[in-house]
């Protein structure tokens, strides 16, 4: 778990991490997030194979957070996607098309 000293109106993104490169690059992923403005908290030890990120929803989007992992050279062999499931919360959750293959 890593904290910043910023008090923010927070949202939480749950990113599903898949691939053999995820565990070795966990530290690099956390550090990449903590280097961004608008990130308050990053947790990797709550849900297996997921990173939980508390962020300022006015400045960042969950999909953009997944892109950060996917573009991180230090995280080769690790893919991130926003966790979508039947327990995705709230009436603001919306229909998101599947990504193009």
């Amino acid at each position, binding site marked *: 778990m890593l904290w910043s000293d910023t008090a923010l109106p927070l949202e*939480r993104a749950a990113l599903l991490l898949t691939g053999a490169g995820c565990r070795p690059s966990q530290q690099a992923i956390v550090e990449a997030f903590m280097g961004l403005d608008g990130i308050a908290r990053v947790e990797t030890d709550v849900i297996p194979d997921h990173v939980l990120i*508390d962020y300022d929803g006015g400045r960042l989007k969950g999909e953009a957070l997944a892109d950060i992992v996917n573009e991180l050279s230090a995280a080769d062999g690790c893919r991130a996607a926003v966790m979508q499931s039947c*327990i995705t*919360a709230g009436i603001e959750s919306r229909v998101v098309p599947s990504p193009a293959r």
Partner: protein
Amino acid sequence: MFTPRFVQGLLFATGVATLTFMGQMAPASVAFAKTHEISMTAVETDVVIDGSGEKYAAWTFNGQMPGPVVRVTEGDTIKFTLTNPATNKYPHAMDFHAAEIDFLKNYRAINAGETISYTFVAKKPGIFFYHCGAPPMIQHVARGMFGAIIVDPQNAKAWPKADREYVLVQSEHFKNPDDVQSMFDRKFDGMMFNGGIFKYHPFVTGGGKLDAKPGERVRIYFVNAGPNEFSSFHPIGEIWDNVYESGNPANKLTGVQTYVVGPGSAATFDVVAESAGAYPLVTHSLTAALRGAIAVLLVSPDAKPAPLMPMVPWTVTVPQTEITPVPAH
């Protein structure tokens, strides 16, 4: 001679300032039955109801929503006292569903500055609702005056031993605590487990989880406080191994996918998750689940012991000022 249950009661009492259990030896004709002196105070206070730290002007028992879990054994006597401090604004009352006593004498509302006491014997085992019955009762329940009493069966072998136990109380959240009409109109804004919206949903800001180990028999004592909505309680990714209507071991169902618990009712749910993973416990009434009634049971070999009602009261952590090291994996 102190039985394990008596010791447990004493241990519990040490954690709840105004709830006291005074074990006494009963007559030989009711061997092992005990008397519990239970005191609660009606407290009108703000409580945190979501992971952002939002506060709600609640009415509570002992300052928490739900009120403290009361736990006794079938056959025990409960000497109950409710205090409504003079500092409160409103009348309050207490109705124990575990009791079989005269309503007129015992469940009347008392004004601020008054106290009421009554005694009952917990004759039937189970999980039971308790709540304030002062008018309008719909508002007193909606604002948080509810809780659970567990009456353990005298015969502990009446059902399988649980490896881990939780109490979950479902209740509706109305943003405006003074808008009684919206309560009558069933226009709830959120659905809570143990007084919090998405309290046990780790994918939501401030959310936690419930823990268990693979193969453990997890026993959920479930109460639906309402005040209006039915709960359709379902474990995603699992099947209830057993459901006990009203929590009575005699009312046993096996292999249940979803079980309906009406407002003012309760049931006990056993589930054994063989594999590590996440098993969300939800009401399958989705307008309620997706507005707060999701509790993720995270099954892991590393699961630690947990209290009956974790995160009550809900203390929302604010980001701290120092950066702590990332744990090594």
